[in-house]
């Protein structure tokens, strides 16, 4: 029992290490591209975790925020001739703005209405991006320049991979700090016990808006990274489908589970690609697998796997491990 525990303790490090050396085994450009996408998804999921996972507010407009990040950065570079790094400043401002803008309605609308309102936001953004002339309408924006450091351009798959990996590590660090700060505790309390939160002298509105702002900042940065990595963006990417996928990542990883966001993102990014060889019906199979994951592992894949394992052991070993299943 004891060594099993300590292995699980090192699981996050193991996972990050594996992500670090993955390109050595996956040499195809195609899979490396998907890896990059998965890492960006993980950044978005880490941010979304503040709202959906910790505070328990179900928002379905993340794809639009991700898209606005991508468009802001791409437009700043192509139309205004800004350096991609400098474009991160307007991108961050955009994230702050969206966070405030979305945070305020969330104070008034709750539960399923918040989900509907954010779906509305997602669709509005998408239709604007599809129809506005200066965002390139349906064809989107091409020839976006990659990030550069001096003469070194992050223009190949493998170079982008490690740039995005660095960004992922940075955001994991930031998110970890936030989750374990007083902010993180306040987010949990919004879901758990809002009355007591008020009585502690904490403004619930403020906490919610902070969660939204942090989350959209994560999403816009990931979006900008995506624009300069893919070098071509179209509005068709930023559908409500993608928003739902972000939430699915969190659910597969376990709502509120920090490291779950990361493997959740990988599963959602990779599973459809691995199923593609099946042929036309791959989306159906994908949907079925997702349903099974949600039904049988509602608290996250790893957390519930642990539970099933201890349960099996309890059946074998009698009552000895009964109290272990309690202290999960």
């Amino acid at each position, binding site marked *: 029992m004891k060594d099993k525990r300590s292995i699980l303790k090192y699981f996050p490090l193991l996972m990050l290490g594996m992500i670090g050396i993955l390109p050595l085994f996956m040499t195809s450009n195609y899979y490396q591209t998907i890896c990059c996408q998965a890492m960006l998804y993980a950044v978005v999921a880490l941010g979304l975790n503040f709202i959906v996972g910790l505070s328990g507010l179900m928002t379905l407009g993340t794809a639009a925020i991700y898209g606005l990040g991508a468009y802001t950065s791409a437009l700043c570079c192509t139309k205004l001739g800004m350096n991609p790094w400098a474009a991160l400043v307007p991108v961050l401002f955009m994230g702050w703005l969206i966070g405030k803008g979305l945070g305020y309605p969330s104070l008034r609308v709750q539960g399923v209405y918040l989900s509907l309102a954010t779906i509305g936001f997602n669709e509005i953004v998408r239709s604007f991006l599809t129809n506005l002339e200066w965002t390139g309408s349906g064809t989107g924006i091409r020839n976006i320049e990659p990030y550069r450091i001096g003469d070194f351009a992050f223009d190949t798959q493998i170079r982008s991979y490690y740039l995005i990996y660095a960004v992922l590590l940075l955001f994991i660090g930031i998110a970890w700090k936030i989750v374990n700060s*007083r902010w993180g*505790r*306040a987010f*949990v*309390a919004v879901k*758990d*016990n809002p*009355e*007591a*939160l*008020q*009585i*502690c*002298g*904490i*403004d*619930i509105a403020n906490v919610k808006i902070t969660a939204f702002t942090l989350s959209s900042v994560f999403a816009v940065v990931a979006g900008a990274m995506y624009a300069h990595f893919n070098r071509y963006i179209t509005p068709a990417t930023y559908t409500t489908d993608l928003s739902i996928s972000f939430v699915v990542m969190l659910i597969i990883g376990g709502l509120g589970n920090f490291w779950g966001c990361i493997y959740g993102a990988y599963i959602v990014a990779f599973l459809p690609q691995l199923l593609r060889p099946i042929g036309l019906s791959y989306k159906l199979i994908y949907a079925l697998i997702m349903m099974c994951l949600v039904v049988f592992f509602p608290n996250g894949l790893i957390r519930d796997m642990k539970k099933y394992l201890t349960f099996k052991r309890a059946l074998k070993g009698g009552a000895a491990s009964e109290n272990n299943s309690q202290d999960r």
Partner: protein
Amino acid sequence: MLEADRITTYYGNACALREVSFEVNEGEIVSIIGANGAGKSTLMKSIMGVVKPRTGAIRYKGKEILHFPTHKIVGEGIVYVPEGRDVFAPMSVQDNLEMGAYSRPFSKSQTEELCEEMYQMFPRLKERRKQTAGTLSGGEQQMLAIARGLMSKPEIIMFDEPSLGLAPIVVDEVFERIKYINQELKISVVLVEQNAYMALTISDRSYVMENGRIAKHGASQELLHDDSIKTAYLGM
């Protein structure tokens, strides 16, 4: 210091408080006694801005606070320890305490110092500092709720039924601490209690509530010997 002037509060169409006037002076313990549904908790919640009175005024140090949101009222220095404890069950004892200081601009070391003070006052919490609050006993949760309230360094602390559901020996301990908070920490205390005898013995002044009104008020020692109170609340 704190003064409620003829406040009237409704829940929907039901009138819960009718022109209640109530006052707390610096350094005293004021108790509010009364039966279930008399409006004791509603009065507390009206002061805290959790429910909004329709008419009347609430002043704190001469400042009108009736329209303040709850967190601002806490910021002014009034803290409410709600009925049924209401601790953050999934968080550790330590984190619960730190949540109490959230609204104040304390530095890390100041917060640490305050926590240490709380642990000195409630040694049992220190033993359990890493445990989640949901696993504590009722008495320990009550202590934690009190300590969490004290973390924001209030000037008035209001306790809503602190003895609810606790074993008699633990009740004594809780009242002991309340007296300590008043005498040593110099914090004014408002005490809402069903345990009328306890409340009257510990407090300086008392209000008796009936059907959303103040039926009687005065020095606790006098009320303790009042015949109508003896029969209605003390069972003598």
